[in-house]
């Protein structure tokens, strides 16, 4: 593994290896001294063209717990917002001696471009690119889910599990990465969305697609993953008439959650629109693993940085 750009680049073995490393990282984090010396002397740059404090902090914590130095390079107030191109920024980071670049961008393909355009040689981690992919989010979702569905099995996949993903699939990089990773690990995925929020062409994806949330929930899935409705991306408008109508048909209400089997877990990548796509008491309720997803994020990102940067890991890979 040279980069972490897209789940589509991963084999099942590679995905399992990252998840197993993340389990290992999680164990080290329960000790009193949590900082590992693994990446002493390396510099990880967080290059964020899009505001996302939670993702940036998660990557920063992951890098620091592996003893890497972290430089945050964010769009606001930097040359990036003054029209400097991705290319110039990449050349700068290369010259500065960054050892890895974690990039978040509103442009689909930005991470791929950084990895392959020849501007910079270092490993690139995709922290979300447009509506394309968010591979570490999918890894942390899978990691969280696996802990509940396959406890104590760090080498297991999710074979036979059923996951329902609900909401704004069209604008969601989280949905795209999760469909790929969950199915790679053997899970069955059902997407639920109003028709205008299902991408034209999604029928080729390895999952079922339905417009009926209650029908999907009636199948008794092992997990329900609610997506954030990205109203800020809805140029052209008219994807659904009102928030109320959306909420009634596609929101995870208290009543809908109560009808789910006891073992069903509720997930959300955050930040949540409480009371819109998910009821507040469901988000905070006993079947919710939303807070746990946040802590999983740090372990998974430690694992990804370890696989891309640690000398012993790279030698293992050879």
């Amino acid at each position: 593994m040279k980069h972490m750009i897209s789940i589509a680049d991963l084999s099942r073995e590679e995905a399992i290896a990252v998840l197993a490393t993340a389990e290992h990282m999680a164990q080290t984090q329960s000790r009193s001294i949590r900082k590992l010396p693994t990446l002493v002397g390396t510099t990880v740059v967080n290059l964020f063209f899009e505001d996302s404090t939670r993702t940036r902090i998660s990557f920063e914590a992951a890098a620091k717990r592996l003893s890497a130095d972290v430089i945050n390079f964010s769009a606001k107030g930097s040359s990036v917002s003054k029209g400097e191109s991705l290319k110039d920024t990449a050349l700068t980071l290369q010259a500065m001696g960054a050892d890895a670049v974690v990039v978040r961008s509103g442009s689909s393909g930005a991470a791929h471009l950084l990895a392959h355009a020849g501007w910079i040689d270092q490993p690139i981690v995709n922290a979300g690119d447009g509506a394309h992919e968010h591979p570490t989010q999918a890894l942390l979702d899978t990691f969280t889910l696996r802990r509940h569905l396959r406890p104590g099995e760090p080498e297991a996949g999710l074979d036979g599990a059923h996951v329902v993903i609900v909401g704004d699939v069209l604008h969601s990089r989280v949905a795209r990465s999760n469909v790929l990773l969950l199915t790679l690990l053997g899970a069955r995925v059902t997407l639920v969305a109003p028709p205008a929020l299902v991408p034209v062409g999604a029928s080729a994806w390895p999952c079922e697609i339905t417009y009926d949330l209650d029908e999907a929930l009636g199948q008794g899935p092992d997990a329900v993953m609610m997506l954030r409705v990205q109203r800020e991306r809805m140029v052209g408008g008219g994807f659904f008439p009102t928030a109320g109508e959306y909420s009634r048909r596609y929101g995870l209400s208290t009543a809908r959650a109560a009808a789910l089997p006891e073992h069903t877990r509720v997930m959300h990548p955050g930040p949540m629109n409480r009371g819109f796509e998910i009821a507040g008491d469901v988000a905070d309720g006993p079947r919710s693993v939303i807070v746990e997803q946040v802590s999983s994020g740090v372990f998974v990102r430690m694992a990804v940085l370890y696989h891309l940067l640690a000398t012993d890991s790279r030698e293992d890979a050879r």
Partner: protein
Amino acid sequence: MTTAPTLLLRGGLLYGETAADLLLEGGEIAAVGTDLEAPAGAEVIDVDGCVVLPGLVDLHTHLREPGGEEAETVETGTRAAARGGYTAVHAMANTTPTADTAGVVEQIARAGESAGWCTVRPVGAVTVGLAGERLAELDAMASSRARVRVFSDDGKCVHDPVLMRRALEYVKSFDGVIAQHAQDPRLTEGAQMHEGEVSAQLGLAGWPAVAEESVIARDVLLAHHVGSRLHVCHLSTAGSVDIIRWAKQRGIAVTAEVTPHHLLLTDESVRGFDARYKVNPPLRTQADVEAVREGLADGTIDIVATDHAPHPADAKDREWDQAAMGMTGLETALSIVQSTMVDREALSWRDVARVMSETPARIGRDEDQGRPLEAGSPANVLVWDPRPTTVVDPAVHASRSMNSPFTGRELPGRNRLTVHRGRVTVRDGALVEG
């Protein structure tokens, strides 16, 4: 200008068919026949096995001047045209300032004349500033020294149906044609690539086929209603081919063009997020590629036009959604047509003469272009050797820009000779300074 030399082209295959000699003298084709006697002082060039065609005519070229000189100028763009085998290009109006007045179109025509590489026919804007709000002074451009006959807001669509109707009606009085860039602006807000399986995976905003097809359908009906001729730029979808076929069956005076890149490339190319593949209209699916090839072969699509759209490197070295749309094409067009159509026996070389020279000249009302290879025609001639292959390298192209989507591809055919008004502009692929 120096007087045209006397040239005897020996043994070329006229229209790729029968071998004959061609004597060029005084800027005209003086004689066609076998075993022609070389007059005193004539240069004899052996073109045995090469295809002889009337010089190519491009109805859709972006020369970028005035205003976009970092991408291309009339000088560099017409050099590129000559290398591609063209003896005339129609320069699109989306310059800065817009080519929407007699003054600007005359300036462009004059620049073409003084460059001397090929005939430059300016296209006039349909609406002032391409803003789609009110008609530009079309008659003034038509009666200017540039004698504009093709009008287009290319890059933008004349989407207001009333304005489109009025434009179609208005140009009838001077035998003009509206060349429509068919793209519904509302259906393509923020659109980045063809809407389908690939856009769904890549998370790029979709550019639906219907945004093109709905405008073409409306326009052929408008053209029929007011009895005007309509030209459809760069159609790219199977549905568009069907609509044009339907319109022609009803006798509607519509002509249509396809670009070389839409004859070859598909949206699969977008997977690497390399913005050289970003173009308007977008690359479509393999089924669309098959349909436009079929439409070109059966005459539904009248012509191949390049939509040569040069851009400086930093307009392309960017994230996909921030990169400029467009591809260079003048210097690769005939190779692409040879490989996608002629080598697959979907078009003959005589058909190539029709779709890349005669018909575009007729649509653009270029009297001196696309004329038969016979005595008395102007000496606008291309000699093309279909046998060698070349690996595309934009660094050796005459265009100022490097944004060729064919970079690194091995393509068939080589320009042996371009003759513009009797002057050799290109010999064995190299420009010949005048």
